[in-house]
């Protein structure tokens, strides 16, 4: 395959742009503790265990397996794992530039969607290695197979991709319904294709169920993949309020990118309804596919039910495609003009931190606070010692230890809907915190110093730079106790 000059230029541009944006926060160890939980749970594979067997985090097993692979490739180097995420984003941008080319072939329509996605995700909210990026990667594959020829093999691959995506994030199962709808709409109602899609979707799931059944963990598997996600429905959540909070925050971040977001939404609505104005309208199936996927990704946000910004990543991804269907040169020029201003703004904002990080690239991992603490603790920890961590769980990752509690993610201790299920299955006790302290682990890491721990001494951590510990809580104090 021969690449055209402008394609190469775009790939280089996208590569450097991803580096400039993403590297600006790589010096901070924790951008979101979700990723720490993925990493800690993923290490279970290395111990010959499966996720949910002794450690619980509320994501499907394929995500942990991929994070385990990242850990192997990088030899447990968190900084390199962050770079893998940058590479995933870069891959997504390349795939975006090669999607939906049937009716729109201009350079504008080819390169606008990836640049818009790059801008939408330029804020630090979207810098961590969220599971949504991996989901997007598999959904982009599904889009590519769907836009290829009409063969049964491609339908099979679409189902397989969505199946894999749903083993990374359960909510992605919604996209199976979307693709069934899209395929039957664009190719005419076809039962065989629908059955093929559903069967290929089931393959990764059946494989995973077999692995868990073989290890007598089928109860844990269904608890984690069905019962807990369904419990999320019971939480009170307002879609409009959550979107309002996001819009306000986005507008505060960058008004130009925000206006691009509004233009994309407006154009999506306009083009969707405009079809119905004309009597003999013809469907632009590629555009309709994007409309369906945008609606599904909003449903994904609604069903996730927590209002976290990263749950909107899928919506931002699909929305980025909408303006590629703009016809009039004047309107294209307006979009390009706003994109240019936005890019200048984003680069001005991120480049000082990026260049500082690039100059200091050799020391980034060594400067991570929890990494330094783990290095110092390594000599005091023996193979049989246990650790109970409820806040900076990266300690578990660096020391390659499971949490003494079944729960890995610190936030889950406060999710009543989850803890109730785990108590029901006797995975945790009613007072999990107290119970784990009573087990007297070698190290206890807490988010408070209000609990008296007589037989423990507090670890001296003043030598670390607490600004590098967590992006969102700069004055995060460490409360690490070691058994006397």
């Amino acid at each position, binding site marked *: 395959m021969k690449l055209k000059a402008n394609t190469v230029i775009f790939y280089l541009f996208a590569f450097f742009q991803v580096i400039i944006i993403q590297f600006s926060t790589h010096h901070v160890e924790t951008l979101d503790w979700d990723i720490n939980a993925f990493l800690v749970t993923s290490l279970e594979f290395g111990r010959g265990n499966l996720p949910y067997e002794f450690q619980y985090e509320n994501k499907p097993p394929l995500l942990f397996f991929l994070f385990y692979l990242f850990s192997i490739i990088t030899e447990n180097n968190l900084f390199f794992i962050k770079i893998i995420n940058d590479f995933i984003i870069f891959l997504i941008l390349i795939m975006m530039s090669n999607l939906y080319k049937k009716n729109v072939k201009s350079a504008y329509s080819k390169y606008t969607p990836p640049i818009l996605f790059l801008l939408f995700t330029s804020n630090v909210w979207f810098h961590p290695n969220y599971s949504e990026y991996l989901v997007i990667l598999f959904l982009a594959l599904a889009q590519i197979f769907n836009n290829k020829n009409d063969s049964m093999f491609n339908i099979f691959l679409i189902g397989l991709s969505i199946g894999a995506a749903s083993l990374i994030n359960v909510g992605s199962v919604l996209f199976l319904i979307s693709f069934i709808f899209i395929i039957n709409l664009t190719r005419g109602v076809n039962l065989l294709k629908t059955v093929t899609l559903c069967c290929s979707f089931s393959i990764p799931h059946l494989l995973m169920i077999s692995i868990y059944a073989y290890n007598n963990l089928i109860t844990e598997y269904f608890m984690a993949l069905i019962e807990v996600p369904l419990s999320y429905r019971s939480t009170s959540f307002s879609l*409009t309020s959550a979107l*309002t909070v996001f*819009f*306000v925050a986005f*507008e505060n971040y960058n008004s130009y990118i925000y*206006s691009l977001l*509004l*233009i994309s*939404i*407006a*154009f999506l*609505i*306009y*083009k969707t309804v*405009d079809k*119905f*104005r004309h009597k003999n309208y013809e469907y632009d199936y590629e555009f309709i596919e994007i409309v369906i996927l945008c609606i599904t990704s909003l449903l994904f946000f609604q069903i996730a039910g927590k209002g976290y910004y990263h749950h909107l990543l899928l919506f931002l991804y699909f929305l980025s495609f909408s303006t590629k269907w*703009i*016809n*009039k040169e*004047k*309107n294209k020029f307006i979009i390009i003009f706003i994109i240019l201003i936005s890019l200048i703004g984003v680069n001005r904002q991120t480049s000082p931190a990026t260049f500082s990080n690039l100059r200091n690239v050799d020391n980034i991992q060594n400067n991570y606070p929890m990494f330094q603490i783990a290095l110092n603790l390594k000599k005091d920890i023996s193979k049989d010692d246990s650790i109970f961590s409820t806040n900076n769980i990266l300690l578990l990752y660096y020391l390659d230890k499971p949490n003494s509690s079944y729960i890995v993610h610190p936030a889950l201790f406060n999710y009543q809907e989850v803890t109730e299920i785990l108590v029901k299955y006797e995975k945790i006790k009613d007072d999990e915190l107290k119970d784990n302290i009573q087990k007297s682990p070698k190290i206890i890491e807490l988010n408070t110093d209000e609990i008296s721990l007589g037989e423990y001494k507090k670890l001296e951590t003043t030598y670390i730079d607490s600004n590098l510990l967590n992006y969102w809580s700069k004055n995060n104090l460490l409360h690490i106790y070691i058994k006397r």
Partner: protein
Amino acid sequence: MANTTKKFQKNRLRKLENLLYFFFAILIFFGIVNVLTYFNLKESIKDFDTISSSYCEYFIFTPSLQNQIENISIEFSKKDIYVFPDLQNLRCIGKVGEFFLEDNQIKGHVYTNTKLVNLTILLFNLSQIVFHYFMRVHSKRNFYTLVGIGNSFIFLYLYNSINLVSFNLLFVSLLIIYFFDYET
């Protein structure tokens, strides 16, 4: 036959257009009534006792809810009120209530309902777009006039209930209109 049908449809649309203007006139009428009961901070202080005993009587028309008049500081805060199922609260939106004078300081509330106002903006703009571009109810000039005056009315009249989403809804509506006119 075809001509008669066309004529009939045209008449029906004309009626719908008149209905729109009638609805609009009612809005403006209520607006005028409220503006007449406008809560003038400067003048109201003089006969504060009479005013403070009233509830939802006075419409406030100021973007600045904190003021200093002579030696009296005035501090109003926004208070969201439910309009469903308490429909009578509808008349309270944009009006002042629960205010008292204490130590040369007047404190009170301005009643707001952001969700209702945003829904009004959304429905008003969407209905106008549908009426104009899909049903051809009114001419381009009348459409622009209606959208312009309607949105100005909502934004000025219900100023304290407006938030960023209101501006978003307006911006997106205007963009959709722009695309209908300049992208087709």
